[in-house]
């Protein structure tokens, strides 16, 4: 496949930005994972994304789908932990939604399929203190912003990033029910989930690169709906 387009090049730029960000946050992610897990998240993710960026760069004029598939497969073989099948396997699976290229609609379908695969593979649901807690609000907010509120993609993405940030914060005061942290039982309460944190970093880079590619500023929005009056904001987070 070599029907490359600007979307393919943009996705390669995203992968490079994610690899750099994860490398920069490597010790922070490992620190989060040492508190409640096996202290391998930062190293595993950094190794996997560095290899993924190399593989993406080596592609000859690829389309968005080819980049996603290649990155997914590389993450699966290089990460060596649960993040391989969760982040990488789901990427390979969801890339099927990009058959007809990258559009706001196909991006929503991609995001939904990705979330479903992560939930299914990890057998996790919202409230288990996992990646799902960041991914679910991000995907739901993105879908609603595109499909219901008809917002421009960049604004929808910015809202999704804010939603993910709230999701990461939500992992702190709850008890882990899946993943290595669940072995700690109640001792997992009070700790931020490293996987959910990585989801946020990845989405932040997607947003930053998207803004850069469109030569636009990152929109200053939050995840709350424009149809909700300001004074109801505080009740909107339940």
């Amino acid at each position, binding site marked *: 496949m070599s029907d490359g387009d600007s979307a393919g090049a943009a996705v390669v730029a995203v992968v490079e930005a994610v690899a750099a960000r994860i490398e920069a946050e490597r010790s922070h992610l490992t620190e989060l994972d040492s508190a409640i897990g096996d202290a*391998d998240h930062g190293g595993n993710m950094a*190794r996997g994304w560095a290899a993924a960026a190399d593989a993406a760069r080596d592609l000859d004029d690829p389309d968005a789908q080819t980049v996603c598939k290649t990155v997914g497969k590389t993450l*699966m073989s290089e990460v*060596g*932990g649960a993040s391989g*099948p969760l982040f990488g*396997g789901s990427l390979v699976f969801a890339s099927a939604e990009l058959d007809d290229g990258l559009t706001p609609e196909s991006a929503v379908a991609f995001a939904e399929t990705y979330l479903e695969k992560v939930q299914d593979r990890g057998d996790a649901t919202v409230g288990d203190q996992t990646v799902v807690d960041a991914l679910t609000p991000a995907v739901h907010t993105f879908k609603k912003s595109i499909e219901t509120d008809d917002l421009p993609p960049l604004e929808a993405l910015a809202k999704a990033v804010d939603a993910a940030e709230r999701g990461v914060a939500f992992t702190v005061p709850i008890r882990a029910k899946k*993943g290595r942290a669940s072995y700690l039982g109640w001792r997992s309460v009070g700790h931020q989930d490293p996987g959910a944190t990585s989801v946020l970093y990845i989405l932040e880079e997607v947003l930053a690169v998207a803004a850069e590619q469109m030569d636009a500023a990152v929109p200053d929005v939050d995840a709350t709906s424009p149809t909700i009056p300001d004074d109801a904001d505080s009740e909107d987070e339940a």
Partner: protein
Amino acid sequence: MVGLVVVSHSARAAEGIVEVAAEMAGDTRLEPVGGDGQGGIGTVPDAIGDAIDAADDGDGVVVLVDLGSAVMNADVAVELSDAEAVIADAPVLEGAVNAAVAATDPSATLDSVREQAEAARGMEKL
């Protein structure tokens, strides 16, 4: 003959479990696989896929797994494999021993071996 794959985060643990199960395994193909491929702790789907292929003689493979990512990576490997492979929801060592014994039964099937592996869930020790 149904083959067996033992997946652990530790390559040495997988080898050790296979060593224990092999005592009762007769001619059963037993393949240990584990580690992150760089000498560390972890599991990799490609390596698990290779182990499944090595254990398969056409009658299928029962896969025993340890924790979290081993389950997920085995799941990916099973999905991608051409062999008929199933993951047993069983404790990895006890399940492997049970499965090894079950596989030596001349009438053994993929289902019967998996069921025997999963019977280890209720094994009492005291």
